[in-house]
């Protein structure tokens, strides 16, 4: 019985991935959990291990291809067939050979079977001349635990139901069928999605962090190699997913001078799509403020050396994280997502903060969990390891998901301020520029103070200007009185 392996549900929001590398070839025998292929999702490169042991009968995908969740990646022969040396691929191209519908055998309600004169029961020794090992196995193999849709060929369902299953990313083969004669109904498919939470989480566990470093082919660097099992992905230009308004056609730039066209990397495309989505859907409003971080700066300076002795590089970001998390607790509407369809604001009772990290490949936002509950030193440590993993392209999906609020610190690169775009579907983002010593009038005297310009950009559907000002002030207050950060106030 050939066993198809589809792209598992990779978790929230992720519906597709780009194949980076195929690590097996047709005919290879692989062990359970052996690496099958590498995919690049929104922001991480992950390795997909083999769900079971067996011989790879067909590889349906190739590097560079974008696959959706539920799409079949690889078909395995039955493990018992390994070494049995059957030709394989006798069925040829399934899609265009629809003349032999194969339907799964087990079913709850068989027909009454008294034989009328006009009815012939063909082939009483059913398995004598099985042409493809697949049929044989389908008849004798025990049913897959999850459903009745076992066997080769199409699962019985109407075309509309099959389409619904594709739409919802449901593999019909694992749906429990309730219709007559084992037919899968629309309701069965919908039921499968509601129960998929447990299924996808178990699949998530199979998604291991990538075991390697950079996998980025610079545009045009890798020649498209075909056929090789481990061929490197070639850069292929693909259009961005459309969001709302359609872009008008571009002029022919060639008329003014030479141009060069460069395909977007998967990451670049994802960033472009996410930013366009956010900027299109969310009415952005930005509030500016400055925090007097003279005292905080002094604390950091004093602690740099002792921290280094403990193997730690102390930075402002960990203090920013703490300040933001504490301020979010006071202003929960900034730690939220707007569910426009439901007409509800989803307030999150956890404080997982994303930190924008610039990499050679582009912007990546790893997430630090439960910032409100962790001591500063731990935050600093986690931040360092995360940033390292991200820069090496080894971040796992879990490193990048579940954020509730984002901080982007452009200080290292200079500038006096920036208005970042909200990391959809979050409600706000904090932008931080470089802290500078400036003359400040304090109690009638001009004194040098270290000032940190911040900008709070938030979803105006969720909060108003006054709320934003208060939330920004709550952050500023904590940065100006670092003892509050230590006391978690």
């Amino acid at each position: 019985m050939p066993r198809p392996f589809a792209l598992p549900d990779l978790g929230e929001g992720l519906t597709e991935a780009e194949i980076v590398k195929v690590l097996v070839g047709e005919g290879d025998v692989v062990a359970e959990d052996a690496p099958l292929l590498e995919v690049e999702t929104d922001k991480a490169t992950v390795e997909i291990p083999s769900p079971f042991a067996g011989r790879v009968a067909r590889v349906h995908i190739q590097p560079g291809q974008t696959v959706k969740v539920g799409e079949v990646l690889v078909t395995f022969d039955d493990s018992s067939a390994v070494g049995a040396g059957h030709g394989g691929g006798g069925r040829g191209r399934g899609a265009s050979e629809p003349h032999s519908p194969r339907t799964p055998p087990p079913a709850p309600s068989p027909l009454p079977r008294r034989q009328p004169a006009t009815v012939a029961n063909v082939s009483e020794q059913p398995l004598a001349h099985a042409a493809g090992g697949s049929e044989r196995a389908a008849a004798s193999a025990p049913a897959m635990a999850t459903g009745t849709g076992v066997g080769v060929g199409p699962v019985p369902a109407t075309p509309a139901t099959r389409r619904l299953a594709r739409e919802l990313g449901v593999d019909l083969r694992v749906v429990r069928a309730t219709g007559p004669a084992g037919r899968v109904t629309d309701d069965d498919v919908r039921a499968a999605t509601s129960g998929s939470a447990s299924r996808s989480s178990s699949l998530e566990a199979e998604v291991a962090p990538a075991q390697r470093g950079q996998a980025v082919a610079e545009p045009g660097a890798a020649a498209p190699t075909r056929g090789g099992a481990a061929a490197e992905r070639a850069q292929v230009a693909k259009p961005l997913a459309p969001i709302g308004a359609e872009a008008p056609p571009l002029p022919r730039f060639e008329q003014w001078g030479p141009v060069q066209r460069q395909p977007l990397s998967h990451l670049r495309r994802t960033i472009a799509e996410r930013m366009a989505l956010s900027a299109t859907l969310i009415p952005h409003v930005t509030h500016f403020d400055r925090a007097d971080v003279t005292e905080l700066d002094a604390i950091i300076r004093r602690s740099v050396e002792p921290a280094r002795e403990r193997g730690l590089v102390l930075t402002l970001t960990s203090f920013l994280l703490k300040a933001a998390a504490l301020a979010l607790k006071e202003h929960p509407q900034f730690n939220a997502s707007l569910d426009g369809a439901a007409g509800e604001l989803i307030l999150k009772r956890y404080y997982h903060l994303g930190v924008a990290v610039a990499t050679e490949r582009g912007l990546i936002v790893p997430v630090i969990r439960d910032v409100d509950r962790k001591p500063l030193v731990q935050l600093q440590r986690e931040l360092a390891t995360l940033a390292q993993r991200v820069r090496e392209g080894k971040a796992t999906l879990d490193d990048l998901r579940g954020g509730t609020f984002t901080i982007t610190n452009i200080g290292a690169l200079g500038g006096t301020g920036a208005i970042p775009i909200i990391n959809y579907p979050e409600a706000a983002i904090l932008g931080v520029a470089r802290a500078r010593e400036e003359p400040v009038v304090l109690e009638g005297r001009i004194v040098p103070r270290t000032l940190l310009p911040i900008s709070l950009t938030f979803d105006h559907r969720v909060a108003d200007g006054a709320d934003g000002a208060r939330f920004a002030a709550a952050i500023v207050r904590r940065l100006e009185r670092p003892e509050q950060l230590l006391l978690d106030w």
Partner: protein
Amino acid sequence: MVMGDLVIEVDVAVIGGGPGGYSAAFRCAELGLETVVVDAGKRLGGACLWEGCIPSKALLHVAALIEDATRAREIGVEFGEPHVSLDPLRKWKAERVVGRLARGLASVAKTKGVEVIGGRAVFESSRELRVESDEPQKIRFKHAVVATGSLPSRVPGLPLESDRIMDSTAALELPDIPERLLVIGGGYIGLELGQVYASLGSVVTVAEMTDGLLPGPDRDLVQPLARRCEKLFAKIRLGTTVTSLTERGSAVEARFGGDAVEAFDRVLVAVGRAPVSAGLGLETTRASVDARGVVAVDERCRTADPAIYAVGDVTGEPMLAHRAMRQGKVAGEVIAGRPAAFDNVVVPAVVFTDPEVAWCGLTESQAQRDGRRVQVARFAWAASGRAATLGRSDGVTKLIADPDTGRLLGAGIVGPGAGELIAEAALAVETALTVEDLAATIHTHPTLSETLMEAAEALLQRS
């Protein structure tokens, strides 16, 4: 790029204006994508409309009229000998049938905003096509759909230079009614056109390499057709290879299997069709093409090149217009980001001979080859009231079902109107209906559609 080249930028470029191509283009346009069709003849319809399905059915309709007039004698209606005038017949076929449908397609394209560009399209990369025509131009596309179709195959070693040796395209032009016609190939094209020419008055010989006419459907469905062909044709040579064709004066001499030699006025070579994928520049893309010229696609009609899709005959068997149309719609939807797939369970097939043969899904012989247990019911039309009133009791309706679940797996019909009747069976198999569903549905009386219900009832032993 040469300076001054006209470059068109589109979302989707469809290559080939046949059923697969125009279906894809129309769907793309409906979904808001800017779409052009590049067609060598600068027309929509493809082989189906211009040199296949439609003109052959028009001629078969004429053949059926003549046959009906002949049969009418048996029931006491006399029309006299039919007289066929080729000029009005050709004109009717070209203008009232093909021309009218072509104008219809062109106006649909206009309504949907699909531009048809004349010329031969050649890929220069996964982003760009060169169109070779009087006004060379380039098309820069986001997606391309290859729908270049197929052409009649040649028999290796047999020349096609003489205009007395025709392929199906030439035969449909109806150059004349040859006194003696040799049809090489006993498949559906050979039998359909053989019957047309026989009805028009030719003495027809059919030479088929295998040992039976019409490979594919079950033999018991082919038998009534074979009997009809035996009456209509002068000779059916099975298991016969034509080894040479020699033009002698106004005749063509055919040598069969080495010894027998016979002279004919015309020869029709109908040995199948081959995909058209050569010279398309596909080697500049990542799409893969096999040794027979078939472009490999997955169930979303995507080739190995993410920007390039392919539909229809160029993607291989079964080379049928209705399959191409479905594929075209799937390709259009996939390009527009919808979750479509060509996951169809059945591609029904029809041979428009007299009697018609139609089938879909699993055949009995395929089940036997696979060693699969099936239940089979065969309902002979001798028991059908409607068949009796039509004077056609030679039909058979056959159902193939899964013995354990009662699910319908396939159907085959032979008899007049089989091509229309198969639609119900196709719907039943595609939607995974059971024999009981079919038996319990009320079918109008008296019609031939009742034969499907009767066969289903036979399977339920309630007849």
